[in-house]
């Protein structure tokens, strides 16, 4: 008998909020996040959770309410996706600047236009400079565990910044798989109730929060303090990861190495499609190739040293970005290249862009990447980014264009 219960990524996220004993949930539904909000609404309505659940009129209002409640000293949970995250974008920077410790779950979904529903990471990565910390998850189990860890990280006095937890739309949000829920007592012992020490509302202690500054020196001070706090978060995260391991038996590092011990070649991936990468690694290993996978998990703060330590000395590394910065290429590729640049043992580094809008990454595409890293290791210069797009997909696209009347210019 397998332990645990079958939960979707969305249900696991709702359970994370429930086990974190949150006080306030401002909400605005958006596909593919809606089920999370439905569950929390139901639990708040029937008294299962003591939280106050409020629907707002937009994601901008939702994030404003979330930040304001956090500034009043409440433990706050909220969630959005894609267009919703962008609609509330102004408030991301604002809330981070307030130095309040809420948790915001993003369910990744490709950005418009053209509008779509399935996952890629341009939504969450657009927020990479907002001051929010970012943790990206691969499994439903990791979603619930990460939310508990995220509150510890956010509320630590050495950090005091909000955290974005990412899970992929459809491939995780709607996918049920076995999840072991931490016992409520275990969760409460790991994550005690929030004791705000700088942002709160008390009748006997009036204060102004989030005040304006003029003059760059004051602004620079406050903005750079966010960077210092993010730097601290690397160490704090590792302490929390150890503690979570002791408490609940599951360990989540800044990055996750997979079959890397003897690997000459490495695939770098993040989120739910990393599972597909792991299968590809197993298959390629069965064929005799010494390959492994590095999964990016904490993306802000960016664990440059941890990544460089894993990748240095390898023959070739392919960074598979499920995102696209038009005019540049894959986003995490740039950051990993920067992390390796001054390392004398840096490997050949390839940029791959794939899985945009949730497009599948097939075995054939992993095989093509495997050939590329071998060529790069043999000294060939492989110019990226390389887009993963198969011949049958190209032919289907042409059929669609024909149906749309795109044979000749209008």
């Amino acid at each position, binding site marked *: 008998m*397998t332990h645990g219960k079958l939960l979707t990524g969305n249900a696991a996220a709702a359970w994370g909020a429930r086990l974190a004993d949150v006080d306030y949930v401002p909400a605005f539904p958006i596909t593919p996040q809606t089920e999370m909000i439905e569950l929390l609404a139901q639990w708040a309505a029937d008294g299962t959770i003591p939280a106050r659940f409020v629907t707002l009129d937009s994601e901008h209002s939702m994030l404003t309410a979330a930040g304001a409640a956090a500034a009043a000293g409440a433990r706050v949970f909220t969630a959005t996706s894609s267009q919703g995250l962008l609609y509330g974008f102004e408030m991301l920077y604002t809330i981070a600047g307030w130095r309040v410790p809420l948790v915001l779950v993003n369910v990744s979904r490709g950005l418009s236009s053209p509008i779509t529903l399935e996952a890629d990471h341009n939504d969450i990565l657009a927020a990479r400079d907002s001051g929010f910390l970012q943790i990206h998850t691969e499994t439903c189990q990791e979603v619930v565990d990460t939310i508990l860890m995220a509150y510890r990280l956010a509320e630590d006095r050495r950090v005091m910044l909000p955290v974005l937890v990412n899970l992929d739309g459809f*491939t995780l949000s709607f996918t049920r*798989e076995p999840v072991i829920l931490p016992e409520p007592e275990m969760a409460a012992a790991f994550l005690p109730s929030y004791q705000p020490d700088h942002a709160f509302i008390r009748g006997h202690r009036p204060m102004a929060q989030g005040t304006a500054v003029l003059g760059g020196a004051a602004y620079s001070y406050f903005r750079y303090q966010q960077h210092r706090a993010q730097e601290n978060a690397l160490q704090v995260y590792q302490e929390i990861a150890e503690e979570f391991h002791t408490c609940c038996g599951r360990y989540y590092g800044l990055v996750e190495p997979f079959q890397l011990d003897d690997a000459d070649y490495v695939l770098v991936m993040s989120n739910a499609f990393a*599972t597909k990468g792991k299968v590809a690694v197993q298959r390629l290993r069965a064929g005799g190739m010494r390959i492994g996978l590095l999964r990016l998990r904490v993306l802000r703060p960016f664990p440059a040293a941890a990544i460089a330590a894993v990748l240095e000395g390898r023959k070739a590394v392919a960074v598979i970005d499920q995102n696209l910065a038009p005019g540049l290429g894959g986003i995490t590729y740039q950051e990993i290249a920067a992390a390796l640049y001054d390392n004398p043992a840096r490997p050949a580094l390839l940029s791959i862009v794939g899985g945009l809008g949730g497009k*599948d990454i097939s075995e054939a595409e992993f095989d093509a990447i495997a050939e590329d890293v071998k060529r790069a290791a043999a000294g060939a210069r492989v110019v990226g980014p390389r*887009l993963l797009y198969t011949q049958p*997909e*190209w032919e289907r696209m042409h059929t669609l264009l024909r149906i749309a009347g795109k044979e000749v210019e209008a």
Partner: protein
Amino acid sequence: MLRIRFHGRGGQGMKTASRILGSAAFHAGYVVQDAPVYGAERRGAPMAAFTRIAHAPILERGAIVQADLVVVADDTLLTEPAAQPLAGCGAHCTLLVNSTRDETALRHTTSHDGRLLVADFTALVLKLTQTLTGLSTALGIAATHMVGLSLADSLAGLTEELDDAQLSPAQHRANLQLAQATYALVRSWEPIQERQGEALVPATALVEMPFDPPWRAAPSIYAAANSPARHTGSWRQFRPVLHPEHCTRCWVCFVRCPEAAITLDCDDFPVVDYDVCKGCLLCVHECPTHAFSAEKEVR
């Protein structure tokens, strides 16, 4: 690992069927993953759901390309280009179709060269639950049998899903009866076997995407007025039928039809275009004199 793919239309309950199967297998001690995939929410539009069942943690995600069992909720999906239930169905794959037609008739409409199983589950559902909402139970239970799960495990999985659905006690009982009846209907069918060795995936070349001019590369559609070509009549499970003797020609149905599938004839009586009508039954509900009835679609 066993990979089961369900094809249905929004509202037919195939997501729930995939979860009934998933919960039953999980109850029996297997590792399970299940997930639906659908576009923007439209009742009647083709959707799919996937259940994976294994002894070890499942390192797969997303759509099942090569299934061991494909369950099809109605036979109109077999020829539906947006559904393509036969995609990746080799000779190893068992195809289970809910249809009023028989196997010989369906062989003519599909290119499937593997095992084909056909039964009229809808008739059973209507008989025992009086609504169509039980199709998830029937096809979910048919699938639990086909993967070799016991009736006890199947009912345990079903019960979990019924509890989640917060049904009335009467509906709950009716669904359990339906499950028993379904099990009796399919029990002579030999369960499917795990594929020996992994399926060979054909090597596929990657393409380097060239620049296309913006008139082509922008997500616009030049082909105007093509929506009438999309016959959505197959989405219908119930058909609105006008009884002119009750019709006062008030035009409410004509005004309210969200698909503009109702026009007026020269005497101002409504005429339903069944090629387009999706069977939302808004006309049935809105008609002040109850001149429309809902008739079960039989194809």
